[in-house]
């Protein structure tokens, strides 16, 4: 009845207001619903248009576009397995390198950065997102790729026994360099989201962990990271979307050879790169242009699939971790056990 006291006299309660007086809420509800629907419609339209535009290529190449490995526009052969592999490898490298660094940066900023430096450091990390991707790409071309080539050669010959990593002959532009630049590019997104999420961990949880005798590292591992895990995963998914679709930096650094390399220092190609490279001259060759739309469609589906698969594994994994997190808390009472 306290609620009715705050409403306009004559109305018994909020829910019993006349329809006219509920108008603002209804406008809000319909407005938000239509905006959300609009996004779905745009994505749906986008998808339908992509299928329509790639029709010629779908009937020409069919599924060999995905599974065949032979990209030869001069002979009307569009089999893009190498493009798909390249997209997946570079994004995987970006995630493996980028996400741990981004999360570590976020933990540092929230948990152990001196208060006065917290603002400036956050801003600097966020500024990485403001650098245009072509600048990252050119920096890779002129600085990173030539400077890292000797190190890559040393690594490949020293660790030649590790499959995929060693054994091959590194070339100037390769999967690894492209993945490394992508790692830097996804860093600000993943880091910014992780930072905000980590900052929401209740002080009580952290204090409880410390009171149970946890070290600072154990507190972060057992109280902070499990609590903020869903948010960090969301940030990582956004980063992965960026890595999968990034175009110009990859064009400059992947070597643009439609082959499947047998180690990470080999050159390759990606779906987004082939569209950027070939679209401007393909315009008056219908099959070629349509094949590039098909590449776009495959990228669209690939991004969707990778997201679904990643979310599935992570939700399964996080259920497991929540369990170990709980046991971790019990073990934390005996630090020796926690370390062992």
């Amino acid at each position, binding site marked *: 009845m306290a609620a009715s006291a705050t409403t306009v006299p004559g109305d018994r309660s909020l829910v019993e207001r006349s329809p006219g007086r509920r108008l603002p809420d209804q406008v809000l509800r319909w407005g938000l619903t239509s905006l959300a629907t609009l996004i779905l419609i745009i994505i749906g339209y986008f998808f339908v248009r992509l299928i329509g535009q790639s029709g010629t290529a779908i009937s020409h190449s069919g599924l060999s576009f995905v599974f065949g490995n032979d*990209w030869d526009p001069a002979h009307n052969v569009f089999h893009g397995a190498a493009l798909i592999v390249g997209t997946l490898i570079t994004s995987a490298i970006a995630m493996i390198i980028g996400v741990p660094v981004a999360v570590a940066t976020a933990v540092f900023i929230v948990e152990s950065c001196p208060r006065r430096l917290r603002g400036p450091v956050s801003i600097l990390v966020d500024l990485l997102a403001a650098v245009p991707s072509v600048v990252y790409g050119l920096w890779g071309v002129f600085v990173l790729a030539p400077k890292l080539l000797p190190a890559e050669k040393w690594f490949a010959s020293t660790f030649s026994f590790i499959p995929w990593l060693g054994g091959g002959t590194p070339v100037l*532009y390769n999967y690894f360099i492209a993945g490394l630049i992508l790692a830097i590019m996804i860093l600000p997104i993943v880091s910014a989201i992780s930072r905000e999420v980590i900052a929401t961990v209740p002080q009580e949880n952290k204090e409880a962990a410390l009171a149970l005798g946890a070290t600072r590292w154990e507190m972060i591992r057992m109280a902070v990271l499990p609590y903020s895990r869903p948010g960090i995963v969301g940030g990582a998914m956004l980063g992965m979307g960026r890595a999968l679709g990034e175009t110009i930096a990859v064009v400059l650094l992947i070597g643009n*050879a439609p082959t499947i390399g047998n180690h990470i220092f080999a050159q390759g190609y990606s779906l987004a790169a082939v569209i950027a490279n*070939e679209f*401007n001259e*393909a315009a*008056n060759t219908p099959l070629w242009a349509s094949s590039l739309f098909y590449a776009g469609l495959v990228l669209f589906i690939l991004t969707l699939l990778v997201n679904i698969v990643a979310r599935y594994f992570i939700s399964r994994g996080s259920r497991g971790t929540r369990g170990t997190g709980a046991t971790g808390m019990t073990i934390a009472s005996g630090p020796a056990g926690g370390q062992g």
Partner: protein
Amino acid sequence: MNRRITAAATAIVVAAGVAACGSSNSNTGGSGSTGSSSSSRPAATINGAGSTLAAPIYQQWSSTLKSQNLTQNYNPVGSGAGITDLQTATVDFAGSDPALKPSDIAKMKGPVLQFPVAFGAITVSYNLTGIKSGLKLDGPTLAEIFMGKITKWNDSAIKALNPGMNLPSSSITVIHRSDSSGTTDGFTKYLSDVSPTWKSSIGAGKVVKWPTGTGAAKNAGVAAAVKQTAGAIGYVEQAYAIENNFTYAAVKNSAGTYILPTIANTSAAANGITIPADLGISTINSPAAGAYPIVSQTFLDVYKDPCKDGGESKTTASGLKRFLTYAFGAGQSTLGAGSNQLPYAPLPSGLVTKDQSQLATMTCNGSSIS
């Protein structure tokens, strides 16, 4: 997709501008045509799109023509996209490096004319420590290098062409264009011409399936990769090579002489080639004695009747004609090896005459353009 939308948006904005100009001019023209002819010529705006190779030429000409009351905009979207823009009549002229194919002409709204505008050589640049100039190559050897069959600089085939040169034993790294380009088209056409194996296994095109090497984006990317890789070889446009002081090889032409890609040797490629009625020439592997063999040409494509088929006003059509008159007149003298000239090879006088007489056949709704 994005590019197309931008192009379309630009075209719409510009078209609106043209319409505004056109209507105001036709008003003044209608009220007193004798009066307007005595004063300076009416302002007109014409829009083109296409070849990136030719973009510096059209941009330079545009700044000259501005003072003559003629605004010319050029959007370097690539030859293929330029042709589709002309097919939809979103531009007044298209720049294209390859000659129009029958399939391109079939989709045009009406008869089109193509004019050769200039030539550009494709240079073979290399990075060999100690060898700054003087490397000689011939077509079959080039094809073997770019096919990955010759892998060392001191291969007997290269040694035989360069007697006395101290060639290193290092590996050859092939650098090629990754983006679809007229440069790749010209280069692979040449290799197909000189090597039957290349023709049957790889062929010619704006993008081909390279058996070896690394793809770098645009001339600048190829140049950067060649500079950074010892033992690299790649192909770049002449204008780019000249402006950046690249080391390039002399290539043996069909007359058996080793020729450096200078402007004069590039212009010479137009001598001795057959000129078809539609002027759709190809200057690859020219039989002329002093011609550099890897030369690409660039064309300007317009509707024969831009008013009827391109939907242009009479003012725009006459602006287009003024632009073309300049291109095959005073414009040609802006090209050449001089310090204040653009590093493209101008047309030889024989082709200029053919361009000019073809220009005279342009009409607006059937009547000749003033």
